[in-house]
């Protein structure tokens, strides 16, 4: 395998079902730089971890200079300002803090946990709907509708509008995939979709400004803490971010989870016997099959040295979280799915200031979803292995997961 082709192989759809051997290859060159204006690819656990905490690394695309043609010039150019995921402090901190004040501690310490009952009801409802079936697609019938319903309720977006925003979310998500980015066409589509999604949300936002409810959109519009208020544009880009990130990743976490459990029946059985094991199972899944495989949007604002390689100022840096998660220097027997691991500080949610905003929600959703699926499905079996995957190399997961089962419990 020649190095010159490694990144292409990783983004190549043909390898989507099992990229792990490629990641193993990748780790042999801790700082891989294949092409003149290509990214510097980082794949070992400790290097990724330290770069995620390195204040010389920027998430702000305007810092990409050496990378030449800026293919990331992104959706933001079309009118919606960048969301906090694409900003550095102090703007990042301010926006994230304001968004967080309606989501988590210290202001709303129990918001997520208090949704437990509601989430369980949604899960039960979805599963009850399979009653007559003996074969289902886990993605379409469960892993997708569940987090979508949840994020809609949390934000205050009408669930019925799902077909409308889905048509916009798909091209945006495709635009995050470095594999598809080569086409200017798809980038443009993504930009437009983002703007349209923002416009759709603007309708709701205006309505919430007049008539606030118990949802995050209302909180975002009416935020007025020590940081002041968000501008309307900031509210929109934050809402777009939360809407997309709130389900596009969880669907993969749940689907990868079910697939992995079906491949490891011992743990499936143990989870059925003890729903409490879902906590450990989900943590191990986040290591073993992380829904976000890599972060392709960092750059350095000065020359930095990583493992003796100088990465010049302005270069793009890819942090391959999924490769770091299986780094044998960090985890014992990393290719083994082992929920009994005690030491599991995975990179599944990233780390540092951009570490996943929705992590508490994603964890809870996946724990409930997997424990309940496994408890209710009688003798579930995979129809095909591997299942067909979604094209995206960044947000990786099965497009369909067809399973058969003997009935519902």
């Amino acid at each position, binding site marked *: 395998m020649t190095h010159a082709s490694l990144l292409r192989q990783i983004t190549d759809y043909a390898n989507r079902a099992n990229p792990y051997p490629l990641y193993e290859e990748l780790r042999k060159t801790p700082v891989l730089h294949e092409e003149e204006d290509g990214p510097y690819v980082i794949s070992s656990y400790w290097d990724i971890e330290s770069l995620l905490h390195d*204040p010389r690394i920027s998430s702000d695309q305007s810092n990409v200079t050496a990378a030449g043609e800026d293919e990331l010039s992104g959706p933001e150019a079309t009118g919606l300002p960048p969301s906090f995921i694409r900003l550095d402090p*102090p703007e990042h901190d301010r926006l994230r803090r304001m968004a967080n004040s309606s989501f988590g501690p*210290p202001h709303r310490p129990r918001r997520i946990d208090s949704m437990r009952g509601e989430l369980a009801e949604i899960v039960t409802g979805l599963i009850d709907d399979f009653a007559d079936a003996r074969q289902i697609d886990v993605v379409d019938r469960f892993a997708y509708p569940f987090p979508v319903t949840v994020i809609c309720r949390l934000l205050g977006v009408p669930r019925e509008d799902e077909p409308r925003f889905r048509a916009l979310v798909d091209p945006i998500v495709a635009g995050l995939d470095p594999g598809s980015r080569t086409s200017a066409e798809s980038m443009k589509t993504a930009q437009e979709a983002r703007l349209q999604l923002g416009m759709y949300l603007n309708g709701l936002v205006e309505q919430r400004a007049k008539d606030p409810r118990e949802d995050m959109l209302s909180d975002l519009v009416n935020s007025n803490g020590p940081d002041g208020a968000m501008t309307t544009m900031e509210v929109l880009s934050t809402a777009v971010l939360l809407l997309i990130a709130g389900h596009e990743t969880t669907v993969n976490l749940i689907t990868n989870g079910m697939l992995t459990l079906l491949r490891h029946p011992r743990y499936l059985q143990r989870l059925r016997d003890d729903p409490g094991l879902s906590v450990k199972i989900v943590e191990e899944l986040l290591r073993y099959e992380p829904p976000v495989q890599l972060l392709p949007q960092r750059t350095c604002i000065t020359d930095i040295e990583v493992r003796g390689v100088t990465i010049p100022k302005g270069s793009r840096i890819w942090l391959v979280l999924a490769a770091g998660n299986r780094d044998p220097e960090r985890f014992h027997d990393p290719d083994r799915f082992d929920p009994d691991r005690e030491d599991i500080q995975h990179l599944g949610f990233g780390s540092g*200031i951009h570490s996943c905003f929705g992590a508490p929600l994603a964890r809870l959703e996946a724990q409930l979803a997997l424990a309940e699926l496994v408890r209710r499905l009688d003798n579930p079996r995979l129809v095909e292995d591997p299942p067909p995957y979604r094209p995206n190399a960044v947000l990786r997961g099965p497009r369909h997961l067809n399973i058969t089962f003997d009935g519902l419990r």
Partner: protein
Amino acid sequence: MVTDYLDWLRREGRIVIVGASLAGLRAAETLRAEGFAGSLTMIGDEPNEPYDRPPLSKAVLLGKADALHTELPRRREVDAKWRLGVPATGLDMTEKRVRLADGDQVEYDRLLIATGVRARPWPKESEAQLDGVILLRTGGDAAALYRRLKAGPRRVLVIGAGFAGSEVASACREMGLAVTVAERAGAPLVGALGGVIGSVSAELYRENGVDLRTGVMVTGLEGDSVGRVKAAHLSDGSAVETDLVVVSLGSVRNTEWLSGSGLGAGPRGIACDAGCRAFDFRGIVTDDIFVAGDVARSPHALFGYQFLSLEHWGNAVAQAEIAAHNMISSSSDRRPHLWVPAFWSSQFRVNIKSVGVPPMGEQIMITQGSLAERRFVGVYGYQGRVIAAVSFDNTRWLEFYQRQIEVGAPFPVEYPTVDRRPEGRRPVPADFPDPSLPTHGPTVTLSGYSPTDRQLVFVPAH
């Protein structure tokens, strides 16, 4: 054979741990995790199960946690004989025995000392005994303080603006109580973080409505006819009317019980090597006595081999794990305790964290954020290298600075960082008070040789 002895020790040896709190418990758990199957005795003078102290000056005072229920979560079964509520009163190194206050003696093959520190009491004993004069170290102290705060004192006086004093003042304000803080140095936290950061802290105090008096000492406490505190007199001639005084003057190491034992124990703690083995008074390392936690002081390569005494939660855990491992390992398997000091605090809704040894810093640069916004990272430099960093509401970056400390990165910090503002372009003096003039207890003490130490008379042995 040494290995035979170790095998025997691990199988059926007797290990005694004196000090049944954070370091003691974590050491016990590590011993069991590493396969120690012999007898384990935990001796503690407090009657309760091991509990956590950091919440005592934070959540507990706000009523968010129960003072008597901050038990430490157990990592595993330790299967020990617990001797709680009984202080150890002496050590016989030759006979390998610990003497207890109830007259018992406990024999050991390996001993771990983790007796920590206690709060430094108000020096004038009769005043210290006034009703309403309180220290804060134990769960009982915290329960008493909480009860009194709830009762709504007219004004609370905190003596000493170190971390503990600041946290108490912060809790008082959150409860809406009037509070005065008296500090001998020029600002709060200066002993731990220097004057530059101290002035940020002073602003925080004032903004939150604390009556902060700096550059003054409390010279006396005055009681009423029934022995309740009613006022405090300050060195600037002023007086503060108060019915509750919290004395936060730092700490005293719990080593008195070792006097005369021949161990290298004194007011600065118990000296040990990097492997947590205690020194005897002649400076010779022992092989069967180990120390961990607040009571230990050990040399650290990153900080000029100075002996560090750290009153840091994380240090107690890390050192206990190393000590426990080393107690049952042969010399080639032993590990050094080279933890990079790290400490956190929260006060006035600001999360403060430091790594490294700030009091060694000569200069400071604000490399991210700004002092004015009270969200920043400050980096301390010592002789051209990065020696420490502190963050206010910016914790997630500290890992990076910790690595800078570990690799001895150059100071001043020349490279740009995200969120570097104009004020962070140049270093300024960190502004620590003269180390020979102790303020309220800093949480890191450098206790290597200091030219200001003149108490010793050196008599070489022939």
